[in-house]
């Protein structure tokens, strides 16, 4: 390649790079587009500028003698994508299932979860307001229906002589309440619920699904 074509290549590359730097910068500063579209745009411009610099500054792809280098670069770039994208995908899946402490605290705060592993956290710490008792006696829940206010407490007590597995929702379609799934109550044990979620919620005994009940939480 002659000296002139070389200089031209560098000048073209330089000007294009300037343009491809200015545009994403401008887009971000003015927030002309937002969110994932903006993210995609700036990443796209970055890739484009990388290609420009590879072609015009590093002369890859224009010199048949440098084909090995081009091959190596493509392979490396592929590996880089695997490392970065692979890590992002895997870690986001892991976080969804197995969160470290900080994130757990954050989500607990956001979803109004009251207690985790015995530690009070989130809204209504410690529980405030009235306490309502629901007794499981003679194969029935009494009272079957309870009305309560937000941040009140319900205690479900197993007064029978058999174990009860209290789950939320209806039988075969279990739900959670305030981050808690149900639990097995041996005779004489109880379950304490701080009412941090609004609405009407059902519960039942998973072992003897005749036993059902519900409670309504209003603000």
């Amino acid at each position: 390649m002659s000296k002139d074509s070389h200089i031209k290549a560098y000048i073209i590359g330089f000007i294009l790079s300037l343009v491809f730097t200015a545009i994403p910068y401008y887009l971000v500063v003015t927030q002309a587009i937002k969110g994932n579209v903006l993210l995609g745009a700036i990443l796209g411009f970055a890739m484009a500028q990388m290609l420009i610099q590879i072609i015009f500054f590093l002369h890859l792809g224009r010199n048949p003698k440098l084909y090995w280098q081009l091959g190596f670069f493509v392979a490396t770039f592929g590996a880089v994508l695997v490392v970065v994208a692979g890590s992002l995908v895997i870690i986001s899946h892991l976080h969804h299932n197995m969160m470290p402490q900080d994130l757990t605290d954050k989500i607990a705060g956001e979803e109004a979860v009251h207690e985790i592993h015995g530690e009070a956290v989130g809204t209504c710490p410690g529980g405030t307001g009235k306490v309502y008792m629901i007794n499981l006696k003679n194969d029935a829940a009494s009272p079957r229906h309870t009305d309560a206010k937000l941040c009140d407490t319900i205690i479900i007590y197993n007064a029978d002589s058999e174990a009860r597995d209290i789950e939320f929702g209806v039988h075969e379609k279990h739900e959670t309440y305030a981050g808690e799934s149900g639990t097995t109550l041996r005779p004489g044990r109880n379950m304490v619920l701080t009412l941090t979620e609004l609405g009407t919620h059902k519960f039942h005994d998973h072992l003897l699904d005749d036993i059902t009940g519900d409670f309504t939480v209003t603000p």
Partner: protein
Amino acid sequence: MKEILIGKLNMHALPHEWFTIGGTAAFGALALVAIIIITRMKRWKWLWNEWLTSVDPKKIGIMYFLVAGFMLLRGGLDAIMIWLQQALSVDGSQGYLSADHFQQIFTAHGNIMVFFVAMAFIFGLINYIVPLQIGARDLASPFLNTLGFWLYIGGVIMVNMFFALGGEYAATGWLAIAPLSGKEFSPGVGVDYWIWSLQISGVGTTLAAINFVMTILKMRAPGMTIWKMPLFTWGSLCSMLMAVSVFPLLTATLFLMFFDRYIGTHFFTMSGGGDPMMYTNLIWMWGHPEVYILVIPAFGVFGEIVSTFSRKPIASYTTNVLGMIGVAVMSLSVWLHHFFTMGAGADVNAFFGLMTMIIAIPTSVLVFTWIATMYKGRIKFTVPMLWFLGFIALFTIGGIAGIMLGVPPADFQLHNSLFLVAHFHSNVIGGVLFGIFAGITFWFPKIAGIKLNERIGRNAFWCWITGFCLAFIPMYVLGLMGATRRLDHYSSSTGWQPFYILMLIGGIIIMIGVALQLAQILASIIERKRLVDTTGDPWNGRSLEWSTPSPAPSYNFTVIPTVTTRDAFWEMKKQALPKPQYEDIRIPKNTASGIYISLFAFLAGFGFVWEIVWLWVVSLIAIIVCIVLRTFNDDTEYTLTAAEVQKLEEARQAKAPKPQPASADDADEDEMGIWDLIKIVVAWAWGVVRRREWRKW
């Protein structure tokens, strides 16, 4: 003030436990004996000039073998200690090792075997054989070659340093998963030694891998296109391309772990937003390709051996090569199978489980091409061929176990059980180690000029395979019964003790096999007149390395050959021999820069371990200075004129022994057996004692 001078070093760091005192004493004694022998024989200058500063890949290859062999014994000792503990520590008995010590032993065992034995043997083979196979005189960068070797030595010293100073190694498992390896849970220097031994030798590996890739891609003989390269060269190329891709990942991850421990960053900590799971993710991104880096050259070795001893070209060259490439490329997409149970969920697990199973396809294609090569061949069951057959059996068993483990629901049961341990040992021992043994036996005549004693070699093989089956088949069973790995103590109600005892016996038989291998070398040296390789081509080989004398001269070839086909030497043998030709040869000069840079790298690592700031600052600056001095040094080669080459060649031929009649190769009734060797050694020792010859030493 003391802290500025010697960092965290204190009196407590000196050896004060039985194993640190023992280890320091053992290494010290060995070093002392070596120093005494070299001094008495007045060989210091020779050692420095001929070996330590050499840039000849053949010499560097031999040095790799020697150190790797020594580390094999060191790692094997760890294995025996583990087996012994597990056979003894049932119910009330605590065995003879504390829990913490036991954890350090299995950590060291894993590190040493993977990094300082397997990688080193592979690098030794590639160094010696690949230039000969492609018709080159040297590697692309002789300087990087010696630098890579000495950085490896720096790692070897670092991983053993704790005996003398520090008293503890990492007790975290061979990959030191976070957060157990963080400062909070491993406050001592053990994990720091772990980090720096791997970091220093890892950089050496990366540089050596770059060198090998450059050599294979740019320095082949004229006419040798990439589709005419021998299989071992192909295996080395695939493996070294992978090494170039993934060792930087290890380097970066180790730095991040180091920063967490030394500076207090929050990459993998449990607080401050750190994510320990990211460490597991990153380390296995390196860790999985690493095991394929180890085994693909072994695949190449076996391809050479099976075609040479079946006296047929490999059944399908293209299929075999594509198989190796396939395994190499796909190995970068399976790493999550090492942590299915960490909780990424069914979608992610399913993808990686599928990829793990798919990678079995090219691997089995390779096995079928080797077996197809044997079909209708005229097979000669030499010792390398025995190692190959053992490999087929063990590697396949291990591979099938691997497929089972690759099914995520099954893995939830088998993860970190002894089933896993049996699986990877089947593949690493059956694949990598047997490949190394086969390769060394196969190329021993080329390296040393003599063949190895076949009879004791066969004994060694049978001990290895019997011992292996006894040691690891019960391990599969134990794993399925629920035994976890890394247990230092268990209850007799599990019913496991008989199995552990069986495994210990298997381990002892393996050790007998190792002793027999050492005996094999000794016997071959004693019998060297009978075993000498006079032609350079003792096995009727197919590739270019067999066209050189045994051992090859430092410049490999007097004139670089031109190649026209695969199995280049096989074709050349069919033609008439031309007259010898000579030309000027550029030979790289020896250099000590590799030694100096590695020395400062070791000192920097030591400074990081013990937080001696001035030491690592000075050492890092010294490394930069050494590199600058070396790269701006233009005077790195000298020329051997054609006349000088001719004189050397004629002198060598004059000294060479006369060729033996062909029948001597096949007659092994009078071959030395192990009992013959023992009688000879005992007689020699008795003679020395009786005639008080030891006074002369």
